[in-house]
C-alpha cells in the first residue's frame, strides 16, 4: 500500500486486519475491485458495515467514502444496521411461494416476535426475506447465514433457531456447520486470498499486465466517445492501435486520490520478477 498517512488514520482495518486487507487488495489489478470484499471484512469485525469502516475502505482503495457507500448500498448482503449473529433468509420467490413460503415467513416472524429485518431482543437473530437463492429443489427453502436449509416448516426453522440459541451446532442441508455472521463475513472477505498468501497466485498475473491510466480507482474505463478528446474512438479495428497508448500509466495527476499510489499491490504486473513463484512448489 502506498500511503503511511492512510494507515495512521485507519479506525477499523488495523493491525492484523490491515494485513488481511492487503491480501484482498493484492487479488486485483485495480484496488477498486476490492471494495466489496473489504466491506465484508468490515462486517466481520463490527457485525455490519459501519460508517468508520466505509471510511477505512475509502482510504485503502483511494476513493471517497461516498463512492464506497454508493457501491456498498447496492448489495443486500452488506448490512448498514446491526443484524445479530444469525440472519435467517427465507426465499419469497416463485417456487417457494407456491409451496407455502409466504405463510411460513409470516409464522416465523410471529413466533420470533419481531418484524422482518428487526433483530430479536437478545440481539442474536434477524429474519429477512430473500429472492431466489438457487435452492428451488428444496422449496420452501432458505438460508441461515448463507448456508442452505431445505423443506422448511415453521417448527423446523424455530427448532434451528433454538438450537443455535443454546449454542449447539446446526448444519445446512449440505452438511456445513452454520457459522456466525462475523465468521461468514470473514470467509466472504478472504475468499481467494489464500493464493496470494502462499505466493501461488502470483502477482505477476498477466504477462506485463499494466493498467491503462483511465482505470485508476474511482474512474470508469473510458469507452467510445471519450469526452476529454484525449484518445481516438477505438473500434475493433482501431483497438489494437490504441492498445499501445494504454500501455503505461501516466505519471501523475490523473485523479485526486492519486491512483498510482495504491497500485503496488494492485497492478502487480509492474513487479519485475516475482519471488516465491509457483514453480518450485508445483513441480
Amino acid at each position, binding site marked *: 500500500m502506498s500511503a503511511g498517512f492512510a494507515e495512521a488514520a485507519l479506525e477499523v482495518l488495523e493491525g492484523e486486519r490491515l494485513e488481511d486487507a492487503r491480501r484482498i487488495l493484492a487479488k486485483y489489478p485495480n484496488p477498486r475491485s476490492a471494495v466489496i470484499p473489504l466491506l465484508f471484512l468490515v462486517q466481520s469485525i463490527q457485525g455490519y458495515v459501519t460508517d468508520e469502516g466505509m471510511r477505512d475502505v475509502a482510504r485503502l482503495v483511494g476513493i471517497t467514502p461516498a463512492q464506497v457507500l454508493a457501491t456498498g448500498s447496492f448489495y443486500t448482503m452488506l448490512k448498514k444496521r446491526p443484524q445479530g449473529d444469525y440472519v435467517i433468509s427465507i426465499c419469497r420467490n416463485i417456487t417457494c411461494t407456491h409451496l407455502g413460503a409466504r405463510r411460513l415467513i409470516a409464522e416465523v416472524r410471529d413466533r420470533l416476535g419481531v418484524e422482518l429485518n428487526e433483530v430479536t431482543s437478545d440481539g442474536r437473530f434477524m429474519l429477512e426475506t430473500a429472492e431466489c437463492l438457487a435452492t428451488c429443489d428444496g422449496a420452501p427453502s432458505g438460508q441461515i447465514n448463507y448456508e442452505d436449509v431445505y423443506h422448511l416448516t415453521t417448527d423446523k426453522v424455530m427448532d434451528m433457531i433454538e438450537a443455535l440459541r443454546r449454542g449447539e451446532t446446526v448444519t445446512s442441508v449440505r452438511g456445513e456447520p452454520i457459522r456466525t455472521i462475523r465468521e461468514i463475513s470473514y470467509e466472504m472477505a478472504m475468499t481467494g486470498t489464500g493464493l496470494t498468501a502462499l505466493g501461488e497466485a502470483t502477482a505477476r498475473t498477466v504477462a506485463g499486465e499494466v493498467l491503462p491510466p483511465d482505470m485508476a480507482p474511482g474512474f470508469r474505463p473510458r469507452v467510445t466517445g471519450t469526452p476529454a478528446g484525449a484518445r481516438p474512438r477505438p473500434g475493433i479495428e482501431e483497438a489494437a492501435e490504441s492498445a499501445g497508448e494504454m500501455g503505461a500509466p501516466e505519471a501523475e495527476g490523473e485523479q485526486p486520490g492519486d491512483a498510482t499510489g495504491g497500485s503496488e499491490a494492485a497492478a502487480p504486473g509492474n513487479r519485475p520478477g516475482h519471488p516465491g513463484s509457483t514453480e518450485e512448489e*508445483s513441480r
Partner: protein
Amino acid sequence: MSVAAGPQEVRIVTRRYHEFPEDSWTLERVEADGGYEAARSAVRDMTPDEVLDTVKDSGLRGRGGAGFPTGVKWSFVPKDLFPKYIVVNHDEGEPGTFKDRELGERDPHQLIEGIIIAAWANQANRAFIYCRGEMALGARRMDTAIRDAYRKGYLGKGIFGSGFDLDVTLHRGAGAYICGEESALLDSLEGFRGQPRLKPPFPAVKGLYGQPTIINNTETLSTLPHIIRHGVEWFRRWGTEKSPGTKMISTSGHVVRPANYEVPLGTTLAELLELAGGMRDGGRVKAIIPGGASAPLLTSTEYRLDFESLQEAGTMLGSGAVVFMDESTCMVRNALVTNEFFEHESCGKCTPCREGTWWASKVLERIEHGEGRKEDMELLLDIANGIDGRAFCPLGDAASWALRSNVELFRDEFEQHVIDGRCPFEDEHLSFTGPRAAVPGPGDSGIAAQPHAGVDADLEGPDPREAGR
C-alpha cells in the same frame, strides 16, 4: 441413445458427481476420473485457433440464458489486444434456476478445466470467477479447487509445462440479481454498483478494466472439456441441429422430484415432467415457466426444450429452469411474486423498468387483495408495453414479458378476482402480502439498493417507503 425408449437423462456435465457423490469435488477423484486431460491436450496439442474452431463447430450455445453461440462470442475478441480476461458468470439467480450452484459445489474442477480451455483458445492469461455471494459452500469448494490446481501446475505459470500462464481469481458477489447481466457483472467486479453498461462496445472488445473480456456461464464452460475430449461429432449426437448437446434443466414447482435433470436439448416438457415423477398429489399442469422467471408462460407440456422451439412458441429456454404449477396456483399471485422480484432487483438505472415494475406491483397487489378495478388488466398490459423494448437492459424486458403472459393467458382469473372482490384460491391468511409495509423486500434492513429510498434515509433508520405504502 435418447428419447425413443422413454425419457432418460444423458449425463455429461453432471456425470461425475452422480457417479462419485462422496468426493466428486476433490482433485484426487477428478484426476482418477480423467479430469484435466482435455485441458492438457488442448494446451499441449492444439493451437488456440483449433480449439476455437472446435467450439464453433460444436454449435455450443451459452447456457446462462441468452443462448448465444459460444464460439462466435469468442471470435469477437480482438486477437492482438492484451491483457484480456475470461470472466465466469457464476452469479446464478434467475428464479427457478439452481444448476450452476450444483456444478460449483460438486464439480468445481470441471469448471476450472473449462476455464483453462477457454483461456487457451482466447490467449487470456487471467480469469475471474464471479461467484454469487450467497453460495457459501460453492465458493468454499471452488476456492479449494483453485488452490489444488495451482499446486499441481494446472494453473499459474507455464501450465502443464507449456509456456502459457493462467491465473484464476475467485471473486464473490454480495447479493444482486442484476449482476448476472454481463456488463453489470463487470461493473460489480470493478467495485461499482452493479448496473448495466451501454452496448456497444461489447465486453468482447471493452470489458473488464476496459480490456477485451469473454464472459461465459458456468455450465457453458463446464461443457468444454467434454467437447475437446470427445469431439464435435460426439457432442452433436444429442440435441438438435441448432441446439446441440445436453442441458441441465432445473425442475421445480409442484412436481414429485424437483431436481436438475440433464437431458438432450429437444426433450419435451412432458418427458421432463415424467423424469421428475409427474405432478405431485395427482395434480394437473396449469402453467409452466419454461426458462426462468423471465420466460413467458406455457400451458401445455407438448413443447420441446430447445432454443428454437421455445422461441417459436413465443417464449424462451433461458437458463433452463422449468417450474411446473398445478391448479392450486393463483396466477395473480404468480404474476405478483414474479413482478415483485423484478421490482426488487431493478437496478434503478432506467425509468421504465424502475417505475414500471413498481407500479405493476401496486396494481397486482390490489387485484390479489380484492380491490382490483375492471380496467386494471388493460393497465397492466399498458405498463408492460411501456417497459418492453424501452428499458436499458434485458431485465426490464423480462419483467414485461412475464407480466404480459400472466395477464394474457389467465385473464379470466384476473377478472374473477376483480368481480368477486377476493382471491378465489385461498383464505385471507394465506394471501400473504398484506399491506406492503408488512413484508419489506429482501435486504431492506441493509443498505440495499432501493430506487425509491434515498441513501440518507437508509443511514438514518426506518425506510420511509414503508410509511408511504
